[in-house]
Structure formats: structure tokens, C-alpha cells
């Protein structure tokens, strides 16, 4: 698959995954871009043994996990002039609330639920995260319960 096609097919999916992880528009944009830089560099080495989607999601989720290493950049993007520049798009409060809730979950849960909401099969999620399918199923069930509970309180 040529890079341009991958880029167009996966950009918004990867962006949402990053957004669920950090809940910061500018940072999510950076993380998504870094993911595609790795994809571009490593595409010639991609062997068709695994699904290209699994491969890309692994790169993106690993990039997210490693994000805490570059804490400095977070501080940088918190500078007031940059916040104004990168004003979040006007999104419905409900969407915003969902992303906030997800970004408050434990790190690995953020990845798991993001992939689930992206309609990735649980077998694939298991491969991306490195856990058994049964584990993933249990965890998704639990996370959804937590989210539902939070939404109930929110809507009240």
C-alpha cells in the first residue's frame, strides 16, 4: 500500500487514538505526525506477516506510551501564545467529556478503549497490546462500565 493511501486512511484514526491518550489537541497532532514519520521510514521494512493496521496501531500506541519521556515539550506547548494558536476546535461538550474521561484512565486502558471505539477486532487489540483476547474482553467491559458511570453522573 503506498504511503499516501495509508496516510489518508489512517490519519484521523491515529489522531483520535493519540487524542484519547493525551487529551491535548496540539500534542495529539504531534504524536500522530511522529507516528507517520516512523511509518514512512519503516514502510519498506514492513512485511505482510501482520495486518498493516495492527502494525500502524502498534507504532502509534508505543509512541503514546513513550510520550512521557519528552515532558519538556508538554511544558512548551503549554505556553499561552501556543494555546491561543492551537485553540481546540469547537466540539460538542459530550465528545470533549468522553475524551477527558478516557485520558484519565490508566495508560494501557486508554489504548485499549481507543482501539475498541475505533472498531478494531478484539483479537487485533490483543495483538497490539500484547495480552490475551480474554484479558482484552474483560478489560473493555470494565472500562465501558466506568465510562457509562461517569456519563450518568455528568448528565445529571
Amino acid at each position, binding site marked *: 500500500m503506498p504511503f*499516501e493511501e495509508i*496516510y*489518508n486512511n489512517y*490519519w*484521523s484514526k491515529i*489522531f*483520535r487514538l493519540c*487524542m*484519547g491518550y493525551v487529551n491535548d489537541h496540539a500534542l495529539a*497532532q504531534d504524536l*500522530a*505526525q511522529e507516528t*507517520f*514519520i*516512523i511509518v*514512512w*521510514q*519503516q514502510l519498506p521494512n514492513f512485511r505482510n506477516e501482520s495486518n498493516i493496521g495492527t*502494525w500502524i496501531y*502498534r*507504532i502509534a*500506541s*508505543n*509512541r503514546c*506510551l*513513550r510520550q*512521557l*519521556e519528552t515532558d519538556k515539550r508538554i511544558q512548551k506547548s503549554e505556553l499561552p501564545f501556543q494555546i491561543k494558536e492551537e485553540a481546540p*476546535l469547537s*466540539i*460538542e461538550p*459530550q*465528545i470533549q467529556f*468522553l*475524551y477527558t474521561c478516557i485520558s484519565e484512565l*490508566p*495508560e*494501557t*486502558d486508554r*489504548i485499549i478503549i*481507543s482501539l475498541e*471505539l*475505533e*472498531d478494531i477486532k478484539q483479537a487485533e487489540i490483543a*495483538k*497490539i*497490546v*500484547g*495480552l*490475551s483476547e*480474554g*484479558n482484552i474482553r*474483560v*478489560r473493555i467491559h470494565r472500562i*465501558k*462500565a466506568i*465510562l*457509562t458511570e461517569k*456519563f*450518568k453522573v455528568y448528565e445529571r
Partner: protein
Amino acid sequence: MSANIDFKNLWKQQEAEQPELSDLMLLLRSYKNKGLKRLVLTNVLLVITTVGLVLIWYYFQPQLITTKIGLITTILAMLIFVLAYNTLFKYYKSASEFESNSAYLKNLITIKRKQKFMQTTMLQLYFILLSLGVCLYLYEYVKLMPTVVGLLVYALTLAWLAFNWFYLRPKTIKKQEKKLDILIKKFEMINRQLDELDELNA
């Protein structure tokens, strides 16, 4: 439990501005250069210093063995430093981004531990070798000076080395250790989230 909240629908409504492909390509180019630049710079600095030291040897023709040992020790110190730096760079390259999250996290923790060893032990070694090298190198020239001046030169040099050893070295190591310890702890914590899950299902 109410299942009537359509999380998937909400999730997908998040707008995502896709940057132009050409912008991404521009970013790509600057990225490639950044990491490489630092590596090249460190290596070039080492080569220049080493050449400088060899030139001193060549032009001033030191007579005493202590001077020669001093020069070699100093070069060795720098060599070890850059070697450690380059090895660290290789470790990072070897961390494969295509592994599962759990494998990747374990890898990251190992790398960070190695980095901690490198930065503390290697820095220690670097300081010792450099101090030893400078002291040995000076001996030949100090011998030619009047005793008082010679003593003063050594006193000043030793004072400078002591400042490095007792103040700069612990400070640098502590700072790096603290930063790495925080990262290692955090990565281990994330990794434990996956372990707990395994236990639950066992």
C-alpha cells in the same frame, strides 16, 4: 448498566485536521537531521580534540613517559565517553516500535536501566581518567618551573579537579539519575497495569 450511550459514535465525531502530506514531508526532513546532528557533532568534537592532543605530542616532543601516559589517558577518557554515547544511541535504534505494547515497555525499561548505568558509571570513569591524565601531563612542564610556581600550578589544577569531582560530578549524576529514575518508575508502573490483568485472568 445502561448501554444506551453510543461511545463509538461520540468517539468518531472528534474532528481531526489532517495536515497536508507535503507538510509532513518537510517535518520528516528536519527530524532526520536532528538526532544525527548531535551524534555527528559529538564525534567530530572528539576527533578534533584527539587530533589536537596528537599534534601537541608531535610538536612539543614530550621527553618524560608521564607526559605521554597523561596524553593517552586523556584521549582514552574522551574515547570512552563518546563510545558510551554512541552505544546509547544504538540501544535507542534497536527499540522496535512494531512490537506489542507490553514487549515495547519491557524493552524501554531495559534501555533506561542501561542508560542509567552508562551515565553514572561512565561519567565516573571519564572524570577519573581525565583528572589522572591532566596531572600526569603537567608533571614534565611543572618540573621546569621554579618550585613555588610549580606547586601553585598543581594546587590550582588539583583545586579545579576537586571542584569537578566533589561538586560538578555528583550534581550531574544526581540530576540524570533523578530524571531516569522517574521515567523507569513510570514505565514500570504502566507495565504493571498489564501484569495485573494477567493475574486476574489466570
